[in-house]
């Protein structure tokens, strides 16, 4: 069974692909059957991925298999699978979260008119994401990378009758295109220089390549892919808006799986980045900046999903930063634990929104703790895990990242990381105290969600508690013994553990004072630092800056280009087209319909060819033929 799963890992993305096809073609009119079929297929994928994990744990050596997709001189593109600890972990996480979210969606999407197509999209997404993580080469990865982008677009705009959803979907798509373009350029460069796009082959060749300058350019180009997909500054703007989609979609795509594809890409192609220290530094600082930047915005937001979205951005920044400082293990570990507790938080938020008929402003909530006990408990577990409180999942992974930053000499980033940890604890518990323990609003009638929604919450809650234990530094064989780049190393620093916990507790305590006890007035502080508050509340006006840029620079350039197109290009093109048509007409009338004309052309052509050959090459002696013989 285990051997079968490892050898046939291509079945994992195939199952949801089948589900997608069957639902689209046969089950459109039967919503319940669609949900059932979709969940069954992803369950099979999940079981297979368990087999893959078991196989990887028994033998961490990479297993690769591939078929040629097409080949031509100088370019062979294959479709294949590469199973090693990193992809094994990802397959497990993705199929697990996808399964739980689909189960949850049965309750959340109930009575939605697009129920069937929703599950079709979910299956398509699962297929694409699983195909992405097991890819063994850049082309396949790019294909699935675009497919997950497409699914994200489809699902953000799922409620397409809302203008905001349409706009958000468009924004996500366009912003991602910017990053994908750079990524594609990087891939093309790799193909041109190295002649292969296979990860294993590239990992062998790249360290021996001397031209570091060019390699740096390539690495940075490839990094633009993750900047777009994983919402790093300055292409982060699409992710908060993407919250227009259904909440389970936000949980699956925009928190736990798709957005970490960028992080995963860096980890997968770490052989490339490891060869160019400059690129790594850029990555580290972009990540660190994004982490801090997003966290500061999160403390002022009021929409429950937007707070979580900025939190996601911040945590993604964390992971990217970890990669940048060389902590691949830490980053992947945080990716996994983050997937658990952030999916939990989003699903919990979805449960709340579901109970309040779509209200998302935390100030309109309040008093949910008593009415929705399961949701509340699991949400608090998730928040504690995110804040990094011992011994929950986030604690272990966050410490790993801080340790990696500090031990590799990035003291500045270590301090930023600690500050972010403080902010994280603060904004999460601001959310918890206001939404769950604030004063109950009279016109709300919350009720606990059905079991089909709370069960995934409980499972994710458990994972958020115990999920981090696999990475405990005291274990002789832990997460880092499998997932690493270069040398596996174990180590821990009590100092970091203690300080980070204390910092997080301080954040929680501050939130407690401000929003539960109200001994410190939040509005007073906001008034006091009015400028900063407004700046943060408006997300540093980044959207507005982009809008201004689009209005003035892009549109201006567009107008100029349009003028050129209209008067110069079109003139030439129309002229060419006219010439072509006319020559076609002339050629047409050569065809007289007279059989004997055709025969004469035939004979004349033979004569012309004889003359041609004879004139081109007198040595053939054809021109002499008339005289002699």
């Amino acid at each position, binding site marked *: 069974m285990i051997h079968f799963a490892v050898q046939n890992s291509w079945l994992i993305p195939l199952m949801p692909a089948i589900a997608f096809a069957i639902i689209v073609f046969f089950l459109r009119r039967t919503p319940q059957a669609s949900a059932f079929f979709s969940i069954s297929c992803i369950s099979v994928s999940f079981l297979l991925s368990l087999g893959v994990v078991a196989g990887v744990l028994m033998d961490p050596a990479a297993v690769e298999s591939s078929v040629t997709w097409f080949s031509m001189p100088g370019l062979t593109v294959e479709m294949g699978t590469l199973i090693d600890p990193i992809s094994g972990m990802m397959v497990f996480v993705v199929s697990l979260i996808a399964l739980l979210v689909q189960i949850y969606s049965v309750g959340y999407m109930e009575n939605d008119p697009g129920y069937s197509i929703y599950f079709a999209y979910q299956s398509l997404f699962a297929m694409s994401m699983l195909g992405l993580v097991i890819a063994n080469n850049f082309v396949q990865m790019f294909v699935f990378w675009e497919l997950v982008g497409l699914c994200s677009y489809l699902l953000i705009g799922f409620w397409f009758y809302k203008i905001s959803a349409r706009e958000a979907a468009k924004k996500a798509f366009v912003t991602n295109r910017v990053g994908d373009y750079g990524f594609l350029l990087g891939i093309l460069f790799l193909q041109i220089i190295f002649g292969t796009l296979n990860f294993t082959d590239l990992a062998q060749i790249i360290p021996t390549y001397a031209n570091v300058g060019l390699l740096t350019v390539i690495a940075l180009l490839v990094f633009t892919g993750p900047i777009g997909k994983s919402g790093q500054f300055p292409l982060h703007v699409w992710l908060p808006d993407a919250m227009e989609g259904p909440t389970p979609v936000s949980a699956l795509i925009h928190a736990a799986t798709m957005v970490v594809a960028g992080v995963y890409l860096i980890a997968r192609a770490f052989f490339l980045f490891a060869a160019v220290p400059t690129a790594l530094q850029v990555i580290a600082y972009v990540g660190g900046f994004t982490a801090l930047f997003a966290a500061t915005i999160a403390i002022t937001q009021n929409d429950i999903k937007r707070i979580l979205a900025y939190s996601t951005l911040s945590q993604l920044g964390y992971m990217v930063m970890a990669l940048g400082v060389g902590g691949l293990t830490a980053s992947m570990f945080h990716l996994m634990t983050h997937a658990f507790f952030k999916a939990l938080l989003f699903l919990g938020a979805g449960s709340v929104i579901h109970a309040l008929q779509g209200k998302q402003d935390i100030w309109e909530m309040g008093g949910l703790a008593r009415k929705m006990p399961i949701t509340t408990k699991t949400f608090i577990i998730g928040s504690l895990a995110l804040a990094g409180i011992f011994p929950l999942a986030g604690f272990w992974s966050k410490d790993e990242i801080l340790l990696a930053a500090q031990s590799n000499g990035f003291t500045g980033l270590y301090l930023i990381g600690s500050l972010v940890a403080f902010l994280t604890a603060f904004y999460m518990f601001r959310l918890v105290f206001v939404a769950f323990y604030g004063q109950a609003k009279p016109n709300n009638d919350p009720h606990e969600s059905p079991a089909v929604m709370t069960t995934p919450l409980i499972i994710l809650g458990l994972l958020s508690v115990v999920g981090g234990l696999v990475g405990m530094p005291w274990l002789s064989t832990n997460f880092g013994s499998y997932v690493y780049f270069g040398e596996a190393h174990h180590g821990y620093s009590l100092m970091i553990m203690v300080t980070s916990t204390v910092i997080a507790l301080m954040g929680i305590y501050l939130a407690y004072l401000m929003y539960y006890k109200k001994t410190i007035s939040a509005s007073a502080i906001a008034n006091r630092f009015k400028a900063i508050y407004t700046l943060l509340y408006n997300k540093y006006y980044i959207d507005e800056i982009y809008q201004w840029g689009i209005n003035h620079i892009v549109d201006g350039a567009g107008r100029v280009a349009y003028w050129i197109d209209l008067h110069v290009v079109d003139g030439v093109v129309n002229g060419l087209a006219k010439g072509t048509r006319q020559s076609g007409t002339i050629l*047409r*009338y050569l*065809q*007289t*319909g*007279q*059989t*004997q004309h055709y*025969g*004469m052309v035939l*004979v004349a052509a033979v004569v012309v060819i004889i003359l041609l050959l004879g004139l081109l090459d007198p040595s053939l002696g054809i021109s002499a033929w008339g005289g002699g*013989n």
Partner: protein
Amino acid sequence: MTITLNHYLLLAGMLFCIGLYGALAKQNAISILMGIELMLNACVINLVAFNRFMAPNHLVGHAFGLFVIALAAAEVAVGLALVLTVYRDLLSVNIQDFDWLKW
């Protein structure tokens, strides 16, 4: 004067050209078919002459010639049938009248 290969080739070449001229210049479809027959016969003369003078021990050229005669007969049979059909449709065997299909 002995008759050499060149004489035969010259005869065949002339016959071929006459046939070609007939096929391209005559207006009557039957005459055109006759022109084509001349071209094919020129080929047969060529084959037989080459066989006789270049490789008298093998009979490949003769065999080829027989095949050509048979195929020419088949071709002209179909050709005459077509001319009849066309005559039925258009009451003419003048090839220049047949230019419905053009441009």
